């Protein structure tokens, strides 16, 4: 319990972004290991062009990133530049820990027209600009080419699938074909043993819902909030049905990898699950392309559209920004770094490496081309972005939702809690956290 005070105290007054001999060291925080190599490479170039600036990358996994960053913010020792996410933006904006970029943009006449307006607009409040777009992402259905072939299916068979809460639709039918037990029986064949499955049709894993049930929710007409910045409404029937469907895929249809395998934070990432042949497909985000590319042999995977639900198609759409900590001791240098990170040159390099879809719209083709050269068609992510999408909920209660979602949905997927109880519990607790 003394830790509470100690940790709060030890941040104060520490000055670790020091400068010596005119060289300033900036700290840059991110959470995705997969994106680090191309970003690091590009930053080395930035350092060459700015001999007075050194950049130190701080990498923390998503599960640790936010508590670490916020503890640093409390202790006034946050990184100078960091990845920011819409789910934390409302709180940060309110606490005044983000630098308003608007005057800097005006002063340096930075052209912001190249950014996808859908991304850029979300970060503006009352004329203030709290970050510039880094990237964007949607969710797709990654598949193993081999698993598809073994089931006698073609990638085209994954197009136009539909699901419904009653019998699962053609989506579940297809997943049955892709689920194989230890005796080689498929889930749609007589004698299939659901207790001894060698390969499941689908793998899902999401700390928040972004890569699993939020997509089904959107396709089922569920709204996570009554309005942006409003209250959570995930206890509505359309949302509960979506949660139920994800549980059904595991426990009723036996076509999805059990939660005892994939449970975050310990479960293996989905590229690993598909790479080992434990699942034929996986719902995951476009930022995972490089990971799947590493886990599977060349030409061993592709990306299909998500199925359509009762109200149609749709995917969660999200984007990150680069933000500057308002308490940075080197605002000038931090702005130089941010300009680089959001420049066409940097984002092109990252897109060419196939890391993430870039924040600058004209570079989307660079990313698609990079993957086409590897034999992977990623245009589905873009098609998804142009269709019906759902952004991350804008709320002050992101901490509560994220922490509770990890705990509570795990229990639903394990069959220890009903979809209805979980939805009510998380809804009540997240709403109670809104001030």
């Amino acid at each position, binding site marked *: 319990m003394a830790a509470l005070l100690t940790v709060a105290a030890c941040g104060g007054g520490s000055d670790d972004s020091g400068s010596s001999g005119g060289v300033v060291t900036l700290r840059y925080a991110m959470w995705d290991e997969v994106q680090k190599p191309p970003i690091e490479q590009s930053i080395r170039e930035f350092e060459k062009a700015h001999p007075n600036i050194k950049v130190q990358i701080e990498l923390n996994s998503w599960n640790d990133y936010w508590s670490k960053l*916020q503890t640093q913010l409390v202790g006034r020792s946050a990184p100078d530049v960091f990845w920011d996410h819409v789910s934390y933006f409302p709180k940060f904006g309110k606490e005044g820990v983000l630098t308003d970029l608007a005057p800097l943009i005006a002063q340096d006449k930075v052209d912001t027209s190249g950014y996808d307006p859908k991304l850029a607009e979300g970060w503006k409040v009352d004329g203030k600009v709290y970050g510039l777009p880094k990237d964007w992402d949607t969710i797709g259905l990654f598949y193993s080419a081999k698993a598809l072939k073994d089931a006698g299916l073609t990638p085209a068979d994954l197009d136009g699938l539909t699901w419904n809460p009653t019998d699962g639709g053609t989506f579940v039918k297809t997943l049955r074909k892709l689920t194989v037990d230890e005796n080689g029986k498929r889930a749609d064949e007589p004698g299939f043993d659901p207790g001894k499955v060698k390969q499941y049709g689908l793998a899902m894993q999401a700390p928040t819902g972004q890569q699993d049930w939020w997509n089904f929710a959107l396709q089922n007409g569920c709204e996570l909030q009554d309005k942006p910045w409003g209250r959570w409404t995930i206890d509505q029937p359309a949302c509960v049905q979506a949660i139920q469907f994800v549980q059904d895929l595991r426990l009723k249809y036996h076509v999805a990898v059990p939660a005892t395998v994939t449970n975050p934070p310990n479960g293996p990432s989905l590229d690993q699950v598909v790479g080992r042949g434990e699942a034929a497909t996986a719902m995951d985000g476009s930022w995972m392309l490089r990971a799947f590319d590493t886990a599977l042999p060349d030409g061993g995977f592709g990306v299909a559209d998500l199925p359509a639900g009762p109200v149609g198609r749709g995917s969660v759409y999200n984007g990150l920004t680069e933000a500057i900590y308002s308490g940075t001791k080197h605002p000038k240098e931090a702005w130089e770094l941010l300009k680089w990170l959001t420049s066409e040159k940097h984002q092109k390099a990252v897109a060419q490496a196939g890391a993430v879809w870039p924040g600058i719209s004209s570079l989307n083709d660079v990313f698609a081309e990079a993957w086409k050269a590897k034999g992977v068609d990623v245009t589905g992510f873009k098609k998804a972005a142009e269709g019906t999408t759902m952004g991350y909920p804008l709320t002050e209660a992101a901490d509560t939702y994220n*922490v509770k979602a990890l705990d509570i949905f795990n229990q639903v997927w394990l069959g220890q809690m009903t979809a209805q109880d979980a939805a009510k519990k998380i809804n009540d607790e997240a709403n109670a956290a809104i001030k």
Partner: protein
Amino acid sequence: MIDDIVPLASAQGRRRRTDRRFARHVRATAEAYALLAPSLIGFLLFLVAPIFGVAGLSLFDWNLMGAPSFVGLDNYRELAADPDAWRSLFNTVYYVLLNIPAQTVLALLLALALNRRLRGGRVFRVAFVLPWMAMPVALGIVWSWIFDPRHGVVNQVLGMVGIDGPNWLTDPAWAMPVIASVNVWQYTGYTMLILLAGLQAIPHQLYEAAAIDGTTPVQRFFMITLPLLRPSLFFVLVTNTIGSFQVFDTVFVMTQGGPGGATDVLNFHIYQQGFQLFRAGFASALAMVLFGLILLVTAAQFLYFRKRTVYDFS
């Protein structure tokens, strides 16, 4: 000293003597406190003050950034009605029950075995204590690999004898036993060391006398060893129980309280409320509950052992 040969007769002289004795006493006490000061100040500043600080904070609502607002006992009321707080309490007790008996019995058996004059006995002693000296965080990472369902040693060994090992850390039924076993492994050596010291303090003559009286080894264990080991047992039980109630690092590194809250122990819950949800007041209230709980259990252990402990036979 000169004073001491002054005749004792007069009352005045007696008073003067008492005064001097008192002055000497005061000086001695002052010296003692002066020598104690560094550690005393440290104790007050870093142990007593934080406890009062946390107790005070538990009456506030504070997100660490803005200004704290006074809410009285609201945090405690909320705590009493919070099923997740109760779950973390049960998880903690479950962990203690898995950990302490296993660790104590194992350590006792090891201590008895190593108490014989074995060739190379010292090597074993060092080997068993080594885990205790290692960093819990590093151990957590290594054990996570060992328990990895696919590539971990545990399941590979089980596979050799035809057993399909479970997903240790993602299965809620197994996660807590795994955490407990890692801690048993880590602290058994330390416990063994204390018990071994206790065993070696038992006078050998007692065993010889008992042997002449025709007792069996089992009788000697229960009638001599165990009663005379009580001070050491008491010490390890109290300190290990306190430590177990405060388990954190292994949970933090290996499971983050998951899967589905199965390893969400009180100390992790405090961390989560304090540093993930930024509810410093509520976390402090939880910390006070943990403090009270440990106090209670320790007091119970003291009462139990005081009645039955025979001290120092040498």
